[in-house]
Structures are given as C-alpha cells and as structure tokens.
C-alpha cells in the first residue's frame, strides 16, 4: 500500500496536467478562434443573433465537458451527451450560414471537433474517430444541401485535413504521454516493492535468528542431556520438559507466519501438543480482537504452554476483548498449582485454583 499510493498519485498528477492542457486549448480555441471569427464575420451571417446563441450553447457544453473531465474520466452517457450537443449546435450554425460562403465563415466546425477531443480524450480511440467523422459528414451534408461545387469540395478537404489532423494528433499525443506516465509510475512502484521485500527479508532473518537463540537456551540443553543419557525419558519431569519444549518449537514455527489473529493461531499451535496427549482443548474468541504485539503474545503463549502441559484431560482457552486490551483465559484440570510466567510486557496474569480446576487469565492492555 505504502509503495502503491505515491506512484498512483504521480501518474494521476501527470494525467491531470495533460487534461488541463487540453481544457485550456479547447477553451482558448472556442473563445479566441471561433469567437474571433464569429465577430469578424458578423455582417456575413443571416442572423448574427442565432450564431451567437449557438456559440453560447457550445461554450456551455465545453464548460460542462471541462468540469466532467477534471473531476475524473466521465462515463459514456455524460461524455456523449456533451458531444451530441456540440455536434447539433455546430451543424445548426453551419446550416444557418449563407449558402456558398459557408466554409469561409464557419466558426463552429473546429470548436466542435476540439470539444469532442476534450470529452472523448480518455475513451476508446474509435469513439473519437466516430465523432470526428460524424462532424465532418454533417458539414459535408450542409454543403451538399447548399449545392456542392468542385472548389467547395477542395476547400472542405483542406479544412478537414487541417483541423481533424490537428485534433487527432493532440488526442494521440495525450494518450502517448498517459502511457509514459503510467510506465514511469510502474517503474517507481517496482523499485519501492523491491526495497520493501529486502526490508522484510531482513526482518524475517532477524526474527529467525532470535528464535534460533531462544531454542539454544532451552531446547538444545535438553536434547544434549537426552543424548548424553543424563536425562531419563522415563522420568515424568523429563517428559514434561520435553512436552514444553515441543510446544515451544511449534509456537516458534507458528510465530513465523504473521497472519491476522496470530495470537489465536499461536494458541492453536500451543494446544496441538496437549491434544496429542489426549487433552481436549477448546479455543473460543468473543468479539473482534485487538492486535497484540509479539513480546506480549509470547508471555501469553508461555502461560498457555505451562497450563496445557499440566492439563490432565480438558482445557478451555478463551479470548475476549476488554477495555483497551484482551483477556486470554485458561480453565484446565491441572490438579495442582502451575508455575506461571511473571507479569511482563504489559501482560498481567492472575489465577485461582478451585479444587482440581485452575482458572488463569492473562490480560494485556495497551496502556
């Protein structure tokens, strides 16, 4: 997550800059280019007022389109709504121009094309091609209606090549820049991921080393004694020590996988050895449990191992959320008092013996 966000933002920032550039281009074209031509040729139109209204309609559509694209990629409905409005307005403006002079005084064709580029910029390229073709066809139809001459057709083709060519070039350029920004972001992302992997590997290595040291302290001497024959496997005390070390080994293995709810996971691993001895162990949790830090988890599982090793036939382990922490409790038929680990790492341990049943509670609080 930490690596993905900045790169996604980076790529997003570039794309927004390209969008802004296109917005400026389209607005400038409509105001200075189209607006300028409209004013310059104002006496040529049959009704200047109608042309002005069409110009305003297109200005509003371009404004709406700019807002849409700056808010994020518009859906096909809103994008095409804007496109259809500018297409209709520009065609109406062209149709109302004086016959024979239409191309010379037409201000709307270019603007409509640019507005289409604006709203269809990040949609499939085919959509923009359809739009530009429809626009060109509309202009051609108006011309045909007015009576098409060979010189008019040449003019039409010249304007088509000039304006549509520029529009396609801008759209293609923005697409290429988008792709480049995406690639740059991906490169940064993979670099960050590699760094994160290296850091994780280092952490895992350190944790392995710590576990190995812990084993050196407890399990290794026992194995050495067993090998040397100084510890007798028939001795109940030695058997208990073996059971405890076996449970610790399982817990150390369980500790390596950092999964959510790892305390429950580690308690299950600790219970495994007792279950092999025929002790029925139930583990139940009430409510969403808080995350407990590693050292505190170890104090809790140490208590679990001590109690489960002493349990004769049954044990119940429960986890419950309490104010600012977690209460892990054990009820087991241990028969006698069990030596429990001392309070440590924010974990307080209490116990109560009732006949042959032991109740103990390890309570970790974050404060």
């Amino acid at each position: 997550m930490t690596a993905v966000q900045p790169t996604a933002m980076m790529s997003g920032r570039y794309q927004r800059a390209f969008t802004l550039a296109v917005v400026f281009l389209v607005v400038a074209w409509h105001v200075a280019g189209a607006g300028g031509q409209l004013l310059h040729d104002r006496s040529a139109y049959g009704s200047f007022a109608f042309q002005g209204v069409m110009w305003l309609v297109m200005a509003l559509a371009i404004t709406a389109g700019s807002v849409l694209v700056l808010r994020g990629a518009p859906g096909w409905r809103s994008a095409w709504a804007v496109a259809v409005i500018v297409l209709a307005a520009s065609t109406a403006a062209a149709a109302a121009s004086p016959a024979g002079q239409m191309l010379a005084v037409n201000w709307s064709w270019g603007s409509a094309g640019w507005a289409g580029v604006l709203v269809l910029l990040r949609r499939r390229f085919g959509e923009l091609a359809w739009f530009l073709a429809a626009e060109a066809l509309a202009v051609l139809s108006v011309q045909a209606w007015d009576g098409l001459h060979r010189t008019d057709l040449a003019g039409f083709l010249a304007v088509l090549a000039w304006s549509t060519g520029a529009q396609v070039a801008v759209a293609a350029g923005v697409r290429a820049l988008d792709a480049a920004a995406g690639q740059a972001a991906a490169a940064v992302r993979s670099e960050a991921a590699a760094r994160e992997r290296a850091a994780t590997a280092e952490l895992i290595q350190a944790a392995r080393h710590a576990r190995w040291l812990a084993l050196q302290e407890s399990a290794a001497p026992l194995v050495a004694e067993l090998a040397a024959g100084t510890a007798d496997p028939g001795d109940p005390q030695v058997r208990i020590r073996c059971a405890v070390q076996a449970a610790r080994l399982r817990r150390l293995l369980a500790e390596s996988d950092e999964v959510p709810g790892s305390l429950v996971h580690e308690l299950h691993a600790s219970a495994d050895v007792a279950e092999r001895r025929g002790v029925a162990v139930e583990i139940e949790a009430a409510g969403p449990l808080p995350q407990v830090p590693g050292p505190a988890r170890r104090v809790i599982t140490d208590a679990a191992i001590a109690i489960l090793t002493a349990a004769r036939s049954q044990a119940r382990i429960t986890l419950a959320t309490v104010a600012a922490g977690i209460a892990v409790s054990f009820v087991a038929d241990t028969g006698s008092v069990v030596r429990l680990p001392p309070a440590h790492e924010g974990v307080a341990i209490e116990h109560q013996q009732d006949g042959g049943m032991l109740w103990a509670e390890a309570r970790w609080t974050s404060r």
Partner: protein
Amino acid sequence: MDQPVTVAIIEDHPVVTEGVASWIRSDPGQRVRLVQTARDLTGLRAVPPLRADVVILDLELSGELVTKRIPGLVAAGYRVVAFSGHSDPTIVMETLDNGAHAYVSKDEGRDHLVEAVLAAAADRPYVTRSQARAMLADQRPARPALSQQERQALLLWFQGMSKESVARRMSISENTVRQYINRARAKYAAAGRTAPSKDALLARAIEDGVIRPGEIMPYMSFARSAADRPSPGAPGQ
C-alpha cells in the same frame, strides 16, 4: 414440580433426536416429558393434549437456517430453546432477538439442554456459555447497556469457570452471580424487536426481583461507554 414439562424436538438428524431423548430420559427427577419429535417445522402438531410447552429447535433443518421461523413459533405460543451446531455470535444474537428463550450449542447439550428447557418452561432466563460469548461479542449499536459487574460475571462464565468459582473470584454469593447473568439476559429481552416470549421473560424477571422496571431502559450509548471504562485499580492505573 408436579407436572413434567412437555417438550417437542424439531431436528432433521434422527441420531441427534435420539441423543436428546436419552438426556431427557436420564434426568433423575424425570422433570421433562418428550411428547413429539418432528424432522421439520411442518411436522409440529398443536393438538391440546400433546401440545408441547417447549420446542427444542435445531436451527439448521435440511441445510437451511430457520432463525427467521422462530417468531412464528413464538406467536403460536411455544417457548423455543435453540439447539445448534453453530456457535457464531451473530447467529446466537439473531436467535435471541427473534424470541428464543435460550441458546444451547451442541457441545453444551449434555450439561445444559434439560436445564435450559426447564428454565424456559418457567419463563426464566438461562444463559449458556455460548450465549454469554455472544453478549460479550455484541458490537451492535442497539445493544443494551450492561453494568461492569454484569459484564465481569458474563466474562468469567464464558471463560469456563463454574458459577461457584465466579462467585469466589468476584467475592460475591453464587446467587448474586446468577442475578448478574440473568439481569444481563433480561436486558437483552428488553432490547431489539418485540416478542411475547421476551415480554414473558421480562415479566418473570421483574417478579423474581432479577431486574427492576427502572433498569429496563431503552438503549443509551453513553451509559454503555461509561460501563466500559476500567474500574480504579485495573491494570494501567
């Protein structure tokens, strides 16, 4: 108890029905009489001489969860004790909210089912450990406000202590432990949707002095967050 409590079992697995019947038979006082067994809800007869006081309802019949059918049974005048292999707190809560008197998980059946049936027949609360767990785990905004003592008694009971041990731990009498736990249950009967069974539980709890009418308040989140605060002397203070 002069007349034995009559009970019907609705359970789709005959072997489970057989097991429940054997628990009922082995009750030393013979306080419960099995009058009917059915494999689904349509098989329940409401003929007066054989009409059951309590229905033991398996919550999953032919692979389908039937918690939504509980209000219908309750409206027909049955007291429902849910008996289920599920122990998911949300299912337990839904069952109680729909008007079941008690919830007994299949692990708890041997020790608790007959007692839960007897308590239900008398409209008295019966809180199993799985029920205590569901109450402790309850995070719904509309949960009732439990006092610190009620929560502590529920927690120790859920943890697996006997009521006697809970009493020793809290330095109170065993009777008071029951009172705390039953009061928590009664508060749940007062919360959520209305059902005649919940009203009956509440009325009985008031009659028995488990809860005072003034303690049954509609849910107040502020009271609840105050009850969650640790007591003086809790770790970290």
